[in-house]
């Protein structure tokens, strides 16, 4: 894994040409190459990389001249904030809508929402962001188009959710990021409900004379939620990935924008650092999702098979 990362990052491009001004003398050039360690053989560079990695040192950014790990961690909270907000929107709107559609298949509500959801995941993320800016910032002037707003402190964490200005800046990018997830959420919930709705235990619950509300909220939802939560967990990772686009458009100072800029500028330590952080993050997410799944589905937790006789 590390070999892949290293080879990928250290073999591309030619940072020498980028970082060292063209009018530098040969001597200055050599000095720069030496100090950046670009002249050592590839294998040496790799071992240094590996040993640094184990010490938590992912190199120093060519551009900013601070340790890349610090740089990434600095920008991580902004991305996480954005991702969580987008997830929140997707769940709060998507789950109930999907539920309603699933309970009334073929109805006008169902068809309209399903059609809209296809639009939702067909719209190219970036274009949608541009249009949002166009509509709400340029034409209507309601919301700011770029940047992150003022930060406040809640429970010791700095976040833009705490200030009105922060919220104003957060709204458009969060909506932009959430749209794709929202459509997915609606469709997922709907199909889950439709599958469960006709199963015997729902019929049995009805035969017991339970109220419709209880049947839907407890019997159906609890079963449907299990796969949904696992999907949501996995999708959180893709939220962080898509944030790269959103952050670029809205100039949101997060990890995503950092990586795009770094790729453009061939800031290899940062790229390497980002890759490592991302991989770690995904492993963590997968682990959490597995745990959540086993907690929620008693069949897994207590060692039975789903259709034990």
């Amino acid at each position, binding site marked *: 894994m590390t070999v892949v990362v290293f080879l990928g990052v250290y073999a*591309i491009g030619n940072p020498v040409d980028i970082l060292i001004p063209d009018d530098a003398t040969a001597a200055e050039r050599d000095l720069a190459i030496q100090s950046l360690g670009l002249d050592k053989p590839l294998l040496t560079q790799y071992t240094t990389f590996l040993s640094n990695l184990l010490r938590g040192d992912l190199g120093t950014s060519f551009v900013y001249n601070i340790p890349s790990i610090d740089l990434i961690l600095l920008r991580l909270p902004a991305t996480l904030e954005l991702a969580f907000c987008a997830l929140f929107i997707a769940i709060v709107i998507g789950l109930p809508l999907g539920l309603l559609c699933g309970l009334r298949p073929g109805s006008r509500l169902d068809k309209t929402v399903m059609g809209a959801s296809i639009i939702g995941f067909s719209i190219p993320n970036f*274009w949608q962001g541009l249009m949002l800016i166009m509509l709400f910032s340029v034409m209507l002037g309601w919301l700011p188009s770029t940047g992150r707003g003022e930060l406040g402190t809640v429970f010791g964490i700095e976040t833009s959710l705490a200030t009105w200005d922060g919220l104003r800046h957060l709204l458009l990018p969060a909506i932009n990021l959430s749209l794709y997830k929202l459509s997915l959420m609606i469709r997922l919930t709907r199909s889950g409900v439709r599958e469960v709705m006709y199963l015997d235990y729902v019929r049995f619950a009805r035969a017991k004379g339970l109220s419709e509300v209880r049947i839907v909220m407890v019997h159906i939802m609890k079963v449907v939620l299990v796969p949904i939560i696992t999907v949501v967990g996995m999708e959180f990772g893709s939220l962080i990935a898509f944030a790269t686009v959103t952050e670029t458009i809205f100039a949101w100072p997060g990890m995503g924008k950092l990586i795009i800029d770094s790729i453009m500028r061939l800031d290899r330590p940062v790229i390497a650092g980002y890759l490592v952080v991302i991989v770690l993050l995904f492993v963590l997410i997968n682990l959490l999702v597995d745990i959540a799944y086993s907690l929620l589905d008693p069949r897994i937790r207590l060692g039975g098979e789903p259709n034990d006789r």
Partner: protein
Amino acid sequence: MIDDIIQEQPWRRAWRHYRQSRFAVIALIVCSIIILAAVFAPWLAPQNPYDLNVIDFFDSKLPPGSSAPTGFIYWLGTDGQGRDMLSAMLYGLRISLFVGVLSGLIAILIGMALGLVAAYVGGWIEALIMRVVDFMLGFPTILVALMLLAILGQGVDKVIFALILVQWAYFARAVRSAALVERQKEYVEAAQSLGLSQPRIMFGHIMPNCLAPVIVLGTMQVASAISTEATLSFLGLGLPITEPSLGLLISNGYSNMLSGRYWISLYPGLLLLLTVFSINVVGDRLRDVLNPRLSR
């Protein structure tokens, strides 16, 4: 009694089912128009956007409907270089579709082959293939594509390569699942007992029965590939400016948006949206039609 035995051809029945949604039929028509427009772009476009003799810089950033001193009408306006938007869009569509469809097709071939092998042969080969598939699918496509292009640099072939790489795993997994189910069925045993060779059974017998999920997935993946390529181009990592796809056109218009010249980003975006949307609608409908479980 004979009437019971003669059944409708599967294709006909599928088409009849598909036809029941007017929306889906319209989407299919739109798809076809778009594909035709892309294929015949050089003949349809009023102006060749690459021909430097025709483009007049002083005509740049004109709103839709305005006309050039030569009397030529820019139906959808012009972009920052003075290119006719309509023509640029048609050519851009051509490239976007080309890249999306080509990468999709190759990904299908690779994924299907690997999926079939995994399902039929089993053992450590299957384990190995599926490990790789799981690994690849654990990461969001856009991220992998981003990283790949960061390493490989720009170029049409590199973009296609990256797109293939992120897509094949979906097909491999889908085909393997379908093939595993088919493998248990009796006709495989029958073919084996007839002494047919393994590859023949795999590709001749099992594969045709796995096509349904591939068709559905393939449609949606092509749409996704087009969208991904557009995103990459927008970010500046995709196709080079010598071959502008719709994504690049949109990105060119980005800076003009804040000054109110919306059309440079709007129209290519709408075309992109329409393309991806109609393909997705067709794919979605196909999924309902070809899925035996949901026929309620």
